[in-house]
């Protein structure tokens, strides 16, 4: 689906009202509008040694509470806040259950995202070393 740009006439008339706030609204019993300050981070975590996907790796935003875990296929997907630089941390939290892997940090910068019609997106291919 194509996202259309706001009509320029709307901006001019709204601007003449001496308030850009005219475009920002919320329904009485609704939420504020979301201006999309996030990006989708997806990826795959594999063992550097075997090349096999690793499940149960904690993928977190460093210094924040937000995290997700890799699935059976070593895949993960989550939306994070769009910042200039965001450190994504990969941590083996299930101990020796499926071998033991070293932790890894990777930096996502705001220049990296692929802008699609469905929003900003980053794909990470991560290899973890065995301990």
């Amino acid at each position, binding site marked *: 689906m194509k996202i*259309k740009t706001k009509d320029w006439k709307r901006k001019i008339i709204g601007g003449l*009202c001496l308030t850009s706030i005219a475009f920002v609204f919320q329904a*009485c019993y*609704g*939420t504020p509008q979301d201006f999309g300050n996030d990006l989708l981070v997806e990826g795959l975590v594999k063992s550097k040694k075997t090349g096999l996907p690793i499940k149960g790796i904690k993928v977190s935003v460093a210094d924040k509470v937000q995290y997700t875990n890799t699935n059976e296929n070593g895949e993960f997907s989550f939306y994070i806040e769009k910042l200039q630089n965001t450190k994504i941390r990969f941590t083996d939290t299930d101990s020796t259950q499926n071998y033991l892997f070293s932790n890894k940090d990777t930096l996502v910068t705001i220049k990296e995202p692929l802008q699609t019609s469905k929003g900003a997106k980053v794909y990470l291919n991560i290899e973890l070393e065995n301990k």
Partner: protein
Amino acid sequence: MIRLLKQTLFREFRKFETKQHELNYLFWECTTRCNLNCRHCGSDCSKDSMHKDMPLDDFLKALDTIESPAENFTVVLTGGEPLLRKDIETCGREIRKRGMRWSMVSNGYLYNETNHNSLLNAGLGALTISIDGLESSHNWLRNNDKSFERVDIAIGLAASSSRLNFDVVTCVNKHNFQELEDLRKYLIMKGVKAWRLFTIIPIGRAKEDEEMFLTENQFKGLMDFISESRLKNDIDVKFSCEGYVGRYESKVRDSNFFCRAGINIGSILIDGSISACPNIDRTFVQGNIYTDNFFSVWQTKFNIFRDRSWTKTGKCAECKEYKNCQGNGFHYWHGEKKNVLVCHNEQLKKATNQ
């Protein structure tokens, strides 16, 4: 002079917006189940709703009829209590897959660290949580002794996220009116950036309860409280878009009153009905997603929302401020629709003996 010029320009802007009627904001009443039994509930929700939750696929089929979604188009999940749905994150992700954004209105009771994390992961962008006073007043209105304790946790979590566009709403009533300043201080202490204040609509369970409704002087007091709080600049306090408040317009909101129901705001209700805001009288329903194409209904119907001249009746008929107000919030038209249920400006005039 500047005020008059701004009003005139805003009326032109409103006309333009009405003609364009771009769908920016879509409520989805995804459940009418609720874990609370609030005294002021306008929808009469209950723990065992007569309606089953709408299947996600049914909603998505309707959503997929939207040809070119507007920039910043947002789906607002509401209820009932949306967090009672087990598939809420899946709902959010499916909306995001379509390049759209989503947000949620919650009473906060079930909002904990686990679902705060999973909702952010699923691309939740905005959140509104209700708090209706300090502990005793909030628990009284919510009919639940643990409600404040739980909403306190929810507010703390939501306010800690710099990603979320988060605000808190409060329904002001006779019970909590005297503690607004303390509530303001509490919200600042919790790190809340934005606070919206409402009055209660005389519908649903609230209708027969006098405790729910402010006197004219209290309503003026509320406007003064909001005006003064906005000057302090420590939290973004505003009056909701529920109604036109005359000379207070520029003091209590960022923009002039403009009820966008059916103009930029649509809804898909629990039974598939297509309307504007969910609190609007259900006799205004324009179609149903199970029998009609949602976007076609949005584009071709909704005339009653976009031409409000029919509201120039009852006390609105002779009102000198009708051109700025246009019949107050659409949700104040119920039943026979011969008169607006509440006129905020009239209340203010009575309070100041104008």
